[in-house]
């Protein structure tokens, strides 16, 4: 059965409805990878509440999906691993590296937003260190930049002639 994927702002939400076969997983992986590129999503939430078993095969597959999405520029959060399922995963020694986990959708969205904000603050801090101090001093922090904005900045850079704080960031 195909996994439905919803778009929510900068994020994608894939809701797994039933046990996944190899083909379903391959399809999900291709689908997510494609949409991350199309919508320039920075986060992907995979809801596994419906899964009553997560065995080594499912773990390996979720892991590979997350790693592939990471290479495409999106961070993955797994939502809704049931307590019994978590218990068995620990007993089996199964771990999910490079993947976030959250209890529910709300927490997953908060998790991704926080991550986004942290990345942004990190960026602003670096701009400050690189000589844009006058701006970082008292000015309110600008809204988070979307990828489209950043691209535009980059394109305009040669025309504007002087380095703006944002372009310093790109030079790093």
């Amino acid at each position, binding site marked *: 059965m195909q996994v439905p994927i919803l778009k929510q702002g900068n994020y994608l939400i894939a809701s797994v409805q039933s046990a996944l076969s190899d083909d379903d997983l391959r399809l999900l992986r291709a689908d997510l990878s494609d949409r991350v590129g199309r919508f320039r999503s920075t986060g992907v939430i995979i809801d596994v509440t419906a899964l009553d078993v997560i065995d080594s095969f499912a773990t*390996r597959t979720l892991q590979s999906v997350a790693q592939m999405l990471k290479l495409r520029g999106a961070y993955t959060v797994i939502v809704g691993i049931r307590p019994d399922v978590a218990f068995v995963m620990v007993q089996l020694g199964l771990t999910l590296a490079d993947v976030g986990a959250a209890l529910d959708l709300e927490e997953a969205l908060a998790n991704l937003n926080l991550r986004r904000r942290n990345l942004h603050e990190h960026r602003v801090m670096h701009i400050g260190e690189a000589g844009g101090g006058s701006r970082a001093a008292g000015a309110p922090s600008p809204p988070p930049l979307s990828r489209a904005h950043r691209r535009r900045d980059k394109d305009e850079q040669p025309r504007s002639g002087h380095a703006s704080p944002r372009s310093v960031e790109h030079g790093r």
Partner: protein
Amino acid sequence: MADESRINISNAGEIVTARQQGRMLAVQLGFDGSELTVIATAISEIARNILEHAKDGEVVISQCYHRRKCGICVVARDFGPGITDIDQAMQYGYSTHKGLGIGLPGTKLLMDEFHIVSVVGEGTTVTMKKWRH
């Protein structure tokens, strides 16, 4: 033996059937919450092993008794290539396929009893039991 389900394993969908049948029988036998997930996961791992290595086989799930204990017995049988070195196959993290190498050793950890018999060229039989506590 009163209840017994026999599931042919020749595609991924049948792995799901096998673990659902196992869970159903385990509920009837009085297993609860996390034990049900343990049993279903063990069946899932062992059925996938059949599919990956032998392509074709069967899983038989039944109830079993020992003295005053009652439990669930899972037999997974295939007529595939067999396992050359069982000790190596039971090592955590060892896999001839591209898997995690957790299937067999992990399943042994999950169940109370686990026996594996394999003859190269003839096939492999795994018998495992979980007792109700």
